[in-house]
């Protein structure tokens, strides 16, 4: 029982981050039909923003070596602000890498390539400015909370619980917004058919911007949370999560918000179930599982089969 709880917590806390990550992909995919490959870089930026907002100093490498912000914020404030910063960058990305192609009616594949290029540039920019070294949010950042807690005998790091709680909260808030608000429904309409939505008076361009903004915010917060839990392993540390996020996106069903959540949790739990002897192969196990699922259900868990329009 204790072992099962431990496994469940480990799987869910990792899965929640995957879900947050995949939701960003999903939102953009649902309105544009393309995967934003710069999403991993936005996630990385969120982690760096959080680190600097709580008063972190740039290391010995990079153009900004030794510098820090003139103020430091508590983590609770730094995390949403980092999300806002990441959202701003995501909006900039939409303006530079996506909109010009969309306005010219270019093939969506081109937007995929420009997003990939933008992601690479962002990562290299981070490296240029703050170096390639690893950064860590100080251990005592959550001073008021114990380092670990026991839940029915299972020892869990408080940061894991926090990660699960914040991710869960954001996922619920997003679902409520999408299904219960006027703008959320407008977003759904644009994802169904942007032209018809435009004819019905919905500003498709505006909704796309909102999708990018929320996607960036979620990635930024996810990056900050992961940075709190583990170290920020250099400018490339979003890449691994980006790959997992892609897997989750496909497993859950392209463009499906509940699918992204379910897919994230399943992949997280699948990794947690990998036996100790095979723990180094957990990625292969997770993606093998994804492969098998897709053989059985190609549209993903909650995706709709693609209907050929005639």
């Amino acid at each position, binding site marked *: 029982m204790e072992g099962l709880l431990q496994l469940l917590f480990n799987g869910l806390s990792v899965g929640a981050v995957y879900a947050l990550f995949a939701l960003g992909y999903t939102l953009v995919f649902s309105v544009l039909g393309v995967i934003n490959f710069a999403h991993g870089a936005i996630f990385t930026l969120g982690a760096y923003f959080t680190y600097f907002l709580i008063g972190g100093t740039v290391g010995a490498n990079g153009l900004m070596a030794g510098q820090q912000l003139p103020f430091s914020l508590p983590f609770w404030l730094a995390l949403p602000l980092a999300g806002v910063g990441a959202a701003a960058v995501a909006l900039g990305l939409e303006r530079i890498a996506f909109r010009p192609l969309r306005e010219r009616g270019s093939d969506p594949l081109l937007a995929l390539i420009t997003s990939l290029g933008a992601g690479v540039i962002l990562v290299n920019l981070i490296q240029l400015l703050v170096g390639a070294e690893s950064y860590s949010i100080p251990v005592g950042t959550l001073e008021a909370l114990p380092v670990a807690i026991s839940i029915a005998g299972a020892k869990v790091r408080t940061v894991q619980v926090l990660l699960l709680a914040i991710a869960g909260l954001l996922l619920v808030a997003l679902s409520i917004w999408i299904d219960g608000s006027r703008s959320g429904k407008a977003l759904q309409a644009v994802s169904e058919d942007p032209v018809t939505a435009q004819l019905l008076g919905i500003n498709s361009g505006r909704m796309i911007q909102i999708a990018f903004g929320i996607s960036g915010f979620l990635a930024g917060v996810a990056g900050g949370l992961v940075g709190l839990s583990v170290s920020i*392993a250099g400018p490339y540390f979003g890449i691994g999560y980006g790959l997992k996020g892609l897997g989750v996106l496909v497993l859950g069903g392209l463009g499906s918000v509940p699918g992204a959540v379910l897919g994230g949790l399943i992949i997280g739990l699948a990794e947690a179930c990998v036996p100790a002897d095979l723990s180094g192969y957990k990625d292969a196990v997770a993606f093998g599982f994804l492969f098998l699922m897709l053989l059985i259900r190609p549209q993903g868990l909650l995706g709709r089969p693609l209907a050929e329009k005639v």
Partner: protein
Amino acid sequence: MPPTRPPSLPFPALAVGLAGACGVLLGCQASNRAPSGSPTLTLGAVVALTGNASLIGQDQRVGLELAASEFGGRAPALTLRLEDGGSDEQTATSAFRRLLQQPVVALIGPSLSQQAFAVDPIADRAGVPVLGASNTAMGVPEIGPFVSRISAPVSKVAPLSIQAAKRLNPKLERVAVFFAQDDAYSTSETKIFQKSIQGLGLKLVTVQRTSTADIDFHKPIADTLQTRPDLIVISALPNDGGNLVRQLREMGYTGLIAAGNGMNSPNIYSVCQRYCDGLLIAQAYSPEAQTAVNRRFVQLYQKRHQGTSPPQFTAQAYAALQVIHEALTRLDRQESLRQLSPNLVSKAQKLQIQPPKGQALARMPLPDLRRALNTVLLQGTYDTPLGEIRFTPEGEVIQKDFYVARVKMDAAGKTGRFALLPNPSPTLP
């Protein structure tokens, strides 16, 4: 065995003039010249400045830069060309190929054994000596005749931290092992660790395989803690290993932790922070060694790093450049003699005049220079910050002194030091 610094031979002014004229006639002009007027040779170095191993590469860069400023200006003058080898084989291969297109006399690097197995054969085929400054996996010197290393192999160093743990806690019985299965050094080191654990009669309760790209270890830690280990032994790089240590402590593990050479860097402080405290790491270098060359190295390092003690990777990188410079110096003297007629040598000895250093090397065709350097390098004995070292004919380092350090973090958990365990400082054969 040749002496470390053979006495220099005097030369007559006539010989100097003749040798200089010879150099011009033979068309062997150096591409650039040191302030003293001696030709400048190029030395390449490839270290991990980006990626998972960048925490190691940063230490190495400091060592190389300090050594270049200390020795590079002395004849034969050396210019250091430093390339980022990343933390993967592809980036290191590109860096090696870029340097091999230049007239480098030798190469130092790469940072990881995993990379060495991929890139050293390229340099070996090109006939360029490669001196590994941090490659400790088994089989590196055997890659080829031009490959050698200054970093003691894991088989010599790794068992010491297990022995030290046993001394610290004589009751310890149950040992858990973690290793990064995608890294040649880690897989090589863990075999030695596991053999050592069994050799001491300890019980290996679990072996957890991780990856150098991993940063989240909750699952393997939860599995490991159920086996109730008294000691956890880690073979990983600073970033993944540092995160593992932090998460082990945060999830309630209070026993001893011994880490391998991959985590032998103060750069782990920023990753595991206050939880680095107590970590046992075997050392191939002691900043406290009271030799003139080490005191000078420590002085240079402390001048640049506000009084902190230099780490092992920095000392090894410094020693690697020093060894190559000393081998070149020795070769220069040998060649100066060989290139002159016995009559001129005799006159030079009578007049007690020094030859222009570095000229003889500049006159050598590059392939011959590289081959001769490799031979001389392997035959020498060197007084370095690591102590006195020499090489086997295969290029394996022979080093006398090894140590075990225990990491002591400050109260804030921001910085620390590698405090050598007082008893005993093992000397291996």
